[in-house]
């Protein structure tokens, strides 16, 4: 009887860990894909340099920690660095490619190589390290769980709130939506669509950089660190179909399935889950799951 009970409580403990794994994984996936949602989902630019902006953000966090700045400032510094580099890239490269999606893929891929090499020149090729602002574990329902991962859930909610506020509550958001829906009409109404695109692309890249700064305490900092997130982020944004709510949902569903596959089958299969399921989902519903 007691043995049975103990087995039951052990199952319960494993369940809690599993649920926490799923929620925190979804939160991290959301943070990483949010910037791409603006650039790809809203502006329809396939930004292969997304991974590089994640990397830029990570190095911004590295610089912040070397300067001894408080860890809260790291994402802010990252946003600034990512946003400025993103805006510059928009002016020099991306602006010419809004009507040429295939060229944009090549150009942003090239951009990512340039950024990667510049990062290597400035910081070296080796793996570096940013200490976590909070270390250790938090007790949740009798289970020790990584405090920083739980913090990521809060960060994801903050980013989602800011994002929604920006797009729905500000003049810039209104202009952006107008430009996306009908650029000629928007220009006719006196909206400077070039400026709107510049700012939107900058914000998208800045968000990618924030993601980089936020995940560094769990990851290592090296010139290619963003790359492992790129495919997953693309798949999630594509099936979300450009809406923040569906992005959140797809992160939860696909992230959850990734954790389940990793836990019960094998982490190697788990790594494939998002790409495979997203491909299947897009086959069934090419326009994604947002109600367009």
């Amino acid at each position, binding site marked *: 009887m007691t043995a049975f009970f103990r087995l039951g409580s052990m199952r319960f*403990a*494993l369940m809690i*860990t*599993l649920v926490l*794994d799923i929620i*925190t*994984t979804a939160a*991290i996936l959301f943070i990483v894909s949010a910037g791409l949602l603006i650039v790809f989902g809203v502006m329809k630019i396939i930004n292969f340099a997304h991974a590089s902006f994640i990397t830029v953000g990570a190095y911004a966090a590295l610089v912040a920690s070397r300067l001894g700045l408080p860890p809260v400032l790291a994402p802010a510094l990252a946003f600034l660095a990512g946003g400025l580099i993103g805006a510059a890239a928009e002016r020099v490269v991306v602006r010419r490619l809004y009507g040429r999606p295939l060229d944009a893929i090549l150009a942003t891929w090239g951009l990512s190589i340039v950024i990667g090499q510049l990062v290597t020149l400035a910081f070296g*090729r*080796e*793996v*570096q*390290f940013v*200490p*976590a602002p909070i*270390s*250790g*574990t938090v007790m949740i329902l009798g289970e*020790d*769980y*990584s*405090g*920083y*991962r739980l913090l990521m859930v809060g960060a994801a909610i903050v980013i989602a709130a800011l994002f929604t506020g920006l797009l729905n509550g500000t003049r810039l958001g209104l202009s952006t939506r107008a430009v996306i829906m009908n650029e000629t009409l928007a220009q006719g109404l006196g909206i400077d669509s070039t400026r709107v695109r510049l700012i939107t692309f900058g914000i998208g890249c800045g968000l990618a950089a924030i993601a980089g700064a936020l995940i560094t*305490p*769990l*990851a*290592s900092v*090296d010139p*290619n*660190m963003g*790359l*492992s*997130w790129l495919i997953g982020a693309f798949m999630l944004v594509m099936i979300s179909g450009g809406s923040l709510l569906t992005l959140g949902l797809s992160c939860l569903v696909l992230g959850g399935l990734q*954790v389940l596959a*990793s*836990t019960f089958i*094998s*982490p*190697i299969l*788990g*790594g494939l889950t998002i790409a495979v399921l997203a491909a299947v989902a897009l086959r069934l519903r090419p326009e994604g799951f947002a109600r367009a």
Partner: protein
Amino acid sequence: MTLSRSFSNLLAAAACTTLLAAPALAADPIKIGVPVGLSGANSVVAPSVVQSAQLAVEEINAKGGVLGRQLALEVADDASGAAGAQKAFDSLVFQKKVDVLISMETSAARNAALPIVARGKVPYIYTSFYEGKSCSPFMYVNAWVPEQQVPPIVDYFNKEKGAKKFFLIGSDYAFGRGMLAFTKAYIEKTGGKVVGEEYLPMDGSDWTPIISKLKGAAPDALITSTAGGAPNVTLTKQLRAAGVALPYGNLAVDEGTAKSMGTDAEGIYLSASYVTGIDSGANKTFLAAMQKKFGAELKTPNDLSVPEYEAVYAYKAAAEKAGSTEQAKVLKALGEISVEGPRGKIAMSKQHHAPLTMYLGQVQADGGVKVIKSFPNVDPGAQCPNLKS
């Protein structure tokens, strides 16, 4: 008829010229080919390997060289891969006509290069630790194989920490899986039990489900074998963030990586044939000489660079024993000589592999590695039963 006679006369004349030229040739330097990954994944460690070779060559030349001839290095970039290694070895063996090859390589690059080495019949001293059982009559290895690296950690956890249940985590590639397969067999042979064995792809960075499984399995100790660099750092950080405080043996960490990981690396156990903290006269002399030669440019000597330094001396000893740089004679002598270096006395006498003194180290709070225990003359086991010496 006359034509062919005059041709053979010509040949004879050419042979005479070659013979006459022989004394002049003796003054030419002996060429040591060093194919390494100056670009690509190995570029983190390759500069330290080249520095080691440079110091050895400079020291030997200052004392009169080998058989009265100076040594010269021919360094070639192999881009850390198999295709690059084929080009690098090919140009070193057939264009530069090196007398010997001495270098560390990835296993894929080594396997791609060995047929070229065999075709050129050039002695090759392989200076990288690897997964074992690579055999060629032209290759000698002076670095460790799993049989030498794994037992110190497992034995220490077993005897000193009372660990019976082990959990293994690795990166999904030949070296990671090979090391852990050996580790598992060794744990089971010594009475322990493996309660979990998990792998993540090499480019994966989220270890969460594996860490949750590790916690669920409640083992006594953890042993990991990831790819070097990023996977090793991310795994360690996430283990620490999840509050894992088990005895933690890491088969893939080196001193440099441990230092860059800061406090998260504290307490990690590692096993190596070289750590900078080896308390011997030879090691201190070596470190001082490296510091003097390279100053601020010095790359910290490590388990991949020090064997390079010793291998140059091994070549010197073999050529002197053979009394010639003739490659067949040198090859035979390489299995018979021993050299005293920073890692101690090393002889590549066991089926082209070397018994080594292994050091069990633990990473300290300041990132340095403290030697906990040394295991003298750990045998490499039967690596190449078909090779005679």
